């Protein structure tokens, strides 16, 4: 019995510690400011509950830090966090006061008396920094286009004589996309990268030219630019 009690309390303590340190240790200056906005404390003990994305914070008045929140109030906290997370991905701090009044603060603005289930009185300003999820989505889309360009670049389907771009340009070597626009000797005029890609399809590859809004031409351009990413621009360099 004694062992179980010891283990149990250690576990509880650990849990509390995790919850607490989860709340306190990572609080930065910005986060303190946010608390200040909602006027946390008011003399009351309060504890903080973070959403899993570390962007939504609910401060529960009347519950000391480390103490369990009563079930009905905990439900209200969870519902509020969910509402806020569904609304947007920006940082929002809310406070549930002892009298159950909810104050919401975002972008330095404070809104009083939010009614759960109702419209959030926050005006969405510019998105600012993209979230990690957004970045992943954007990168996945880019990678898809670059992969398609890679496939076309290595394919003999663009021409009629079996040649592929990669045969003269392994790893998009010698494409110099950073030097466009420039006077392209073969075209006898100033060209952009896609003009030269199209010319190469027609001439060394003996294929049909692509129209300038053809998805294949755009994918090829995307692949070439992605491969030479990081090279400084130098328009007109020969």
């Amino acid at each position, binding site marked *: 019995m004694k062992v179980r009690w010891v283990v149990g309390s250690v576990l509880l303590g650990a849990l509390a510690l995790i919850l607490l340190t989860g709340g306190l240790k990572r609080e930065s200056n910005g986060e303190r400011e946010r608390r200040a906005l909602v006027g946390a404390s008011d003399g009351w003990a309060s504890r903080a509950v973070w959403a899993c994305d570390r962007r939504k914070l609910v401060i529960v008045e009347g519950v000391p830090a480390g103490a369990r929140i009563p079930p009905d109030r905990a439900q209200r906290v969870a519902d509020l966090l969910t509402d806020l997370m569904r609304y947007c991905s920006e940082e929002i701090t809310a406070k549930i006061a002892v009298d159950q009044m909810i104050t919401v603060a975002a972008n330095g603005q404070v809104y009083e008396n939010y009614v759960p289930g109702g419209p959030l009185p926050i005006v969405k300003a510019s998105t600012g920094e993209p979230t990690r999820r957004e970045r992943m989505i954007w990168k996945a889309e880019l990678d898809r286009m670059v992969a398609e360009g890679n496939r076309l670049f*290595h394919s003999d389907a663009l021409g009629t*004589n*079996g*040649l592929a771009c*990669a*045969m*003269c*340009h*392994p*790893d998009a*070597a*010698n494409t110099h996309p950073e030097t466009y626009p420039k006077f392209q*000797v*073969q075209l006898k005029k100033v060209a952009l990268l896609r003009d030269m890609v199209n010319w*190469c399809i027609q*001439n*060394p590859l003996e294929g049909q030219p692509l129209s300038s809004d053809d998805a294949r031409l755009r994918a090829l351009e995307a692949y070439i630019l992605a491969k030479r990413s990081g090279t400084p621009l130098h328009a007109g360099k020969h």
Partner: protein
Amino acid sequence: MYRNNLTRKEIERALAERSPEDEGLLRSLQSCDRRHFLRVSLKFAGMAAAAGIFQPHGFQLVNVAHAEAAPGEPPDIAFRFAYVSDTHLYARGMSHRFAKAALKSVEDVNALDPQPDFVFFGGDLAQRCRPDELELGRQILAELKAPLRMIPGEHDWYFDLGQKWREMFGPDRYAFDHKGVHFVAINSIIEKDFWTAKGYTPAERMDIVAGLDDGRQSRFEVGAEQRAWLKQHLATVDRKTPLIVFSHSPLYKLYRPWNFWTDDAEQVQAILQPFERVTVIHGHTHQVLTNRIGNIDFHGLLSTAWPWPYAPQGLPEYTVQMRRSDPFDQLDGCGDGRVDVHTNGRVDKHYHFWSRNPRVVTAEEMASNTIPGPRGYDGPSY
């Protein structure tokens, strides 16, 4: 051996016609009408030939008028062989640009006067190792007048792991002696099995290997078995005998991502190192490429089909790059050439470009490590 295009009779006639007028030969050229011109030029050519300063070779028409300035031919060339390499043929008939280029190369070599002792084919005859591609290559090369020595490239190998090649062209490694030089041909495009585990079909395997930048394939190597053969074979050759090694890949480590690479290069070089004079002639890189490691000189061959760009890193300091090629000109950066072998086993490596001035990397330049750039603009491609 006649070192120009005049027959023996014409030379004798020219020499017999030599007279005090010949002092004024140059003056007579200034008032040259057609009849006079032909007679005069024959005389002049005859004189030039007799003086040994007329460049007989089909590739280079030296400016005989400035013969005093040009050194002409070194007197100690023991023999020469021509090369054709990396034809990458598709089986799409003779109107395909690669087939036309391969035939152009054969015509170049056949037009050489005098004929070279033999012709070396540096590998990659076919593009996808299909029997009809190899057969087309065999037919085109069969037009060559001089004897032919072949080695396979990876494009000749990975559809059927060399079965058709060996059937058509014999062993992928061999050796022979020629006028005091010992030649060894090795298969340096061996790759460790990357296809079985992934279940690639032969066609897929070949397409992967065909992609220079396709990282799914293994790196080239000579391999333990072949190194053992090489070592054992070379043990029978005197250290003082000049050695020329035919290889498809460079036999040194230039740029791994493009398989301009031989994984066991150091070990192969160690086997060659004891010999006094070693030259490696290799294909695969489709560009002017010169290197020296220890006592081994390395010279790359031009392709008839297309030029590779230079690798982003790893370029040997001996190499004077060729200028980036013009894609409008489907012959630019392409060509063939020859190797002149001196009596001491050193070589002059000639690059015969189809759309550019020829280049030569002489044995003297290799020894002194001062290799001049090409005549006219030919700046770095990167």
